[in-house]
């Protein structure tokens, strides 16, 4: 019971002080780079927690994002699930504070400085200039999430992903139905 409680509080990895600091600082940095929303920074989060630190597998990373998609609330909560799987509730605090604090302070400063400048040429140029980057980063995120599952059954996995895109583009139904269908198909072993 004691070890289970520890897992929930600080995670299964026994992270040291330096690890906590790096976790917090990495997510703080990503906060200010998340111009197209938090999900565009997912490839770099994966690079950090999977490839660089080995804190979780790439399949677990994808599952963390998937759990957040299945739950109600802002998409940014996928960050909390990654934090939980790396460092328990302390990991949730480190990743969420890192992700939200810098962008929150910036948003409040800009709001008070004046939303009336929002049509200024520099802001329009920034908006236009970042749009294609956001598109590229979203595609990269899709690929990074898909990659751990491609090797087993490449054709079925590609078809399932394409069917999801079609479902979102051509129906008005909630994305939750797509997630639930995926869960059933996966549980039945169709993607193995």
């Amino acid at each position, binding site marked *: 019971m004691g070890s289970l409680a520890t897992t929930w509080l600080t995670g299964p990895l026994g992270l040291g002080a330096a690890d906590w600091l790096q976790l917090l600082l990495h997510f703080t940095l990503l906060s200010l780079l998340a111009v197209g929303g938090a999900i565009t920074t997912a490839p770099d989060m994966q690079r950090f927690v999977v490839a660089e630190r080995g804190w979780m597998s790439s399949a677990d990373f994808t599952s963390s994002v998937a759990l957040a998609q299945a739950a109600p609330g802002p998409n940014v909560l996928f960050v909390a699930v990654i934090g939980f799987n790396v460092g328990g509730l302390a990991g949730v605090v480190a990743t969420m504070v890192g992700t939200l604090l810098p962008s929150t302070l910036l948003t409040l400063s800009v709001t008070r400085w004046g939303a009336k400048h929002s049509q200024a040429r520099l802001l329009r140029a920034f908006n236009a200039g970042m749009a294609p980057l956001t598109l590229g980063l979203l595609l990269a995120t899709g690929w990074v999430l898909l990659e751990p599952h491609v090797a087993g059954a490449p054709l079925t996995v590609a078809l*399932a992903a394409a069917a*999801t895109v079609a479902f979102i583009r051509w129906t008005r139904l909630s994305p939750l139905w797509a997630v639930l269908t995926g869960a059933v198909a996966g549980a039945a072993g169709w993607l193995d």
Partner: protein
Amino acid sequence: MNAGTDEPPALRTPASPGEMFRVFTRMALQGFGGVLPVTQRELVERQRWLSPQQFVEMLSLAQVLPGPNVVNLALMIGDRFFGTRGAAAAMAGLLAAPLVVVIALAVLALQLQAHPWAAGALKGMGVVSAGLVIATASKLAGSLRSNPLGLPLCVGAALLALAAIGVLRWPLVGVVLALGATSTALAWWKLGR
């Protein structure tokens, strides 16, 4: 700043930060696959805290700023009515209840992960999640046709970002700073002509 003729007759002011917290909590719990689609209906049509024009202006600024768009929007609306306390109430409303739900799901997933069907279900959800992100990208692709950069430059920048981050797995900092600065500078130049 004058009220236009198409402005709804009676905008309302939220009574307290507590009311903001409750309204944002309700919106957050309705939002599967993102809360942004729910916000317009709730804030403009049901609560009438903002006119449609005010909503669009705030949303476009929230989308330009780094950070989760819907969190930025909540901060701006909270700040507009109650300053820092309002911003904190709106953001807490948006995040607190869904955070409890999602952590409970994560705990449940940890308990179940030994079962092959649970691992399979997570795999299926993961593949769909990737599809959802790609679908968001495909919606965004349509809007690039009206981008001042022009389509060829947009496609080039998107492919460079995809290759650098998705394939070469370079760190995001350098890619966003270098590619973002170049792309923004080009857009600045095109807008000035």
